[in-house]
């Protein structure tokens, strides 16, 4: 049987694919060239398109699904940003650009917590006339109940557990309101409500950062009679400018204005758009393309565009003028475990610090724009009290200093290098790239890395976060990233450097640092109420960790965000490292 000549048709496939080349790279002129493109990075320092114009549908898109829309059960940064649209926690971050936005200010509360009793008692007064979306007035009992819910880790396992860690314990342990059989269900003894507008928190030990803790959405009031447990995520009772009108789980969320919200009681949010929609589980490339075409307003995840869109944006002056490159608040780094030999010797760790090629680290994460700025300190610039310093020439010799590395190796007794394992998350291409880059650069001084990739879902729970596993598998280097739960030194360093946070599973102090200097300073931070003194410890802790060479900082993450010209009141909220979702409006 004779066959058709098909070789020529291979060209068909190639031609079609080559048509794509016309779409990318050079002079992609997509996106509306609105006359008010405020300029590259304009939203990092100022409000772009300030306006009080009302109306329009604000569309968000996200490439994955939320962990939960229940404000008591979420731990994603972008969700904490998004929940400000429908919740009012006790405190929140001030809605203003630049360093101004790092301040924590009262939201539902009338003022910051009044501290008494040597730092053990924190009293908050709440505004008297805030209403839920059904018109009922918010009382202190609703705030107490919201905190109580977070204690039931079987029903609501996903949010942070600061309250169970910080509040005064009771015996038997408080099980949460769903299994609590005490009268009126107000069984959490550490939180009391002397009257309808006062909430008093009793701490187990002084904790100067408690105002930050109550800025977490978990303190957003929940009316006990309207709580539906695991189904609350389907329709939380709103105290913010918008309320749920429909929510198809993991598919589409639609919000409409909450008629009982008053702007005068909530200066950190605005109610401008007449509808808000969030579409989950969209294809990431699709999100970027629609953003550029103007069919989508915001990428909810807020972590920046993909490579294709990045190229289009950076090569087109019009598009570039509508984009921002903020610091996102993450530090991408590598833990250098202090227990796995020979890294238990500080000089061997110092060798790693000198030998690592930081430029390649940056390139692996996406280069100076989309990856980040080469880091020389553990705390990124948007941590309160951070000071820049550079112990290992990360910024002066970003390709590494092999001579000093070799000297350090000699000092630790391994002049020809050593072997150790490196752990990374295999489903994160940037970490894969980083692992290989480090493998290549460290090999230059004889440090041989064997790479071990693990799935990100179980990375902390089963592998790198399990000290026994790390020891038995010789994982001297472990890639990680960290963003603090609140932007001060304690929030940044506690989980990753405090000796008492080393835990047998889910460990985040993977370098297993137990330095008394660091521990001491962290303790002082926790108990010092004076903000200036407290914040001065940040740089000291940072310096000590770097002296211990327990962490190899990679990059202060930056992301390239496209700022849709349709949006008004756009600016970067520095704590979230993405646009402030609570104030957006449309032209």
């Amino acid at each position, binding site marked *: 049987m*004779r066959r058709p000549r098909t070789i020529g048709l291979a060209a068909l496939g190639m031609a079609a694919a080559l048509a794509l080349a016309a779409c990318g790279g050079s002079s992609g002129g997509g996106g509306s060239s609105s006359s008010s493109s405020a300029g590259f990075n304009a939203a990092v320092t100022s409000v772009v398109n300030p306006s009080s114009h009302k109306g329009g549908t604000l569309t968000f898109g996200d490439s994955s699904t939320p962990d939960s829309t229940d404000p008591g059960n979420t731990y994603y940064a972008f969700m904490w940003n998004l929940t400000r649209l429908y919740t009012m926690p006790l405190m929140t971050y001030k809605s203003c650009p630049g360093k101004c936005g790092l301040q924590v200010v009262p939201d539902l509360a009338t003022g910051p917590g009044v501290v008494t009793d040597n730092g053990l008692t924190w009293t908050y007064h709440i505004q008297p006339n805030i209403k839920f979306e059904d018109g009922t007035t918010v009382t202190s009992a609703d705030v107490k109940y919201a905190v109580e819910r977070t204690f039931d*880790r079987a029903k609501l396992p996903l949010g942070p557990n600061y309250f169970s860690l910080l509040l005064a314990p009771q015996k038997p342990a408080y099980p949460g309101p769903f299994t609590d059989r005490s009268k009126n269900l107000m069984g959490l003894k550490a939180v009391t409500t002397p009257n309808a507008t006062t909430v008093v928190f009793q701490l187990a030990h002084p904790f100067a950062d408690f105002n930050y803790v109550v800025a977490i959405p978990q303190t957003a009031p929940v009316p006990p009679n309207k709580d539906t447990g695991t189904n609350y995520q389907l329709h939380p009772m709103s105290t913010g400018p918008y309320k749920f009108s429909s929510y198809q789980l*993991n598919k589409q969320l639609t919000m409409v204005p909450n008629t009982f919200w008053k702007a005068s009681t909530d200066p950190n949010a605005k109610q401008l758009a007449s509808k808000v929609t969030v579409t989950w589980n969209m*294809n990431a490339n*699709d999100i970027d393309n629609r953003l550029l*075409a103007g069919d989508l307003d915001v990428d909810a995840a807020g972590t920046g565009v993909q490579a294709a869109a990045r190229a289009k944006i950076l090569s087109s002056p019009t598009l570039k003028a509508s984009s921002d490159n903020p610091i996102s608040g993450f530090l991408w780094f590598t833990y250098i475990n202090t227990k796995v030999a020979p890294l238990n010797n500080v000089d061997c760790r110092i060798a790693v610090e000198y030998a690592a090629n930081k430029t390649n680290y940056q390139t692996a994460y996406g280069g100076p724009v989309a990856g980040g700025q080469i880091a020389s300190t553990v705390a990124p610039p948007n941590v309160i009290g951070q000071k820049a310093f550079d112990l290992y020439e990360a910024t002066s010799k970003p390709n590494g200093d092999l001579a000093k590395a070799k000297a350090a190796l000699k000092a630790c007794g391994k002049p020809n290098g050593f072997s150790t394992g490196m752990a990374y998350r295999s489903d994160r291409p940037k970490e894969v790239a980083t692992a290989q880059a480090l493998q290549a650069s460290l090999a230059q001084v004889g440090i041989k890395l064997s790479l071990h990739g693990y799935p990100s*879902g*179980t990375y*902390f729970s089963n592998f790198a976060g399990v000290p026994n596993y790390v020891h038995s598998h010789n994982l001297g280097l472990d890639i990680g990233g960290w963003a603090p739960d609140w932007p001060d030194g304690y929030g940044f360093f506690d989980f990753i450097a405090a000796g008492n946070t080393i835990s047998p599973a889910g460990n985040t102090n993977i370098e297993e640092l137990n330095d008394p200097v660091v521990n001491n300073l962290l303790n002082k931070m926790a108990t010092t109420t004076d903000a200036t003194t407290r914040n001065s410890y940040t740089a000291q802790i940072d310096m000590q960790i770097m002296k211990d060479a327990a962490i190899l900082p990679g990059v202060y993450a930056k992301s390239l965000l496209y700022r849709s010209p349709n949006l008004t009141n756009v600016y970067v909220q520095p704590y979230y490292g993405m646009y402030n979702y609570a104030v957006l409006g449309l032209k």
Partner: protein
Amino acid sequence: MLLPGRNPGRAAAPGIVITFIIRRLVATVFLLIVVSMITFAIFFLIPRLAGQNSYELATQYVGRNPTRAAVLATETKLGLDKPIYVQYGTFLKAIVFGTHYNSGTSTTYCTPPCFGYSFRSQQPVWPQMVSDIPVTLSLAVGAAVLWLVGGVAIGVLSALRRGTFFDRFSMGVALLGVSLPIFFTGLILLELFSYKWPIFPNVTFVPITQNPLLWARNLVLPWICLAFLYAALYARLTRAGMLETMSEDYIRTARAKGLRERKVIFKHGLRAALTPIVTIFGMDLGLLLGGAILTEVTFSLHGLGLFTVEAVQNQDLPEILGVTMLAAFFIVIANMVVDILYAVVDPRVRA
């Protein structure tokens, strides 16, 4: 032509066909139970065999930095600490009888078939799958019509015009279709017809009840993408089958009898060539109904395929189980329908 696996059946009377259907339904139920057991065993056993214990399994379903108590609570809630047969028993009982679920503030009854609750969102799995079915159904059926009509038509024409330019060109394109990965084709379609030239912008699913025109318009690109692959396959198969049957003696006889050419082709030639097509169509459609995974991921269509991917990424065992069972159900039903159609299409099976 002896068809693999097909033994000639008995003479078809309506009663026989009904008995056949009933027997197949019973076999189907049995088959699904076996599938469920194997699926359950694989997903629950293999992690154990590979060395994970239930505590470690539970840590995947709590948030960051969980306390030990939290992990234990999750372990108990999800039933991970119970022996396999108990977990399977609970699973099966829920499907048949439904189960009660305590959301914290109230107890809801999950009506049968109840595929349990998602480990992550703690919402019932079955309603989520049901809401995804229309998307996958629209995608699969629409593409199926396209590829069947298109593929068979091209295959027939190519067979009849064997050796001509049309034949070679279409078979060449068909070869292209079966050799390119589907997500590659999908991406090219999107780039050209959705982003670069916004002929089909914003591909999202609009239910047919809401706006039929928009429903169809948004599905054109995914339909083409999916249909291209299968049409190519079917064109090749039809052509090969047609060439075979058209060279049979009975075709010559039919022509000699003086029948019109069209009748010869369709009533005699195509009909016989269709039998393998029908088999494969049934299996393909059945498989697609369980989720056209690659197409849905490429075009962001919230169907069963996307549901599967998300379930796997979150290692959400009830969702994984649910979607596997549903997909298996579709496949088995499709095979059953195919078997019934055999009796209709091919008289030799009936005879």
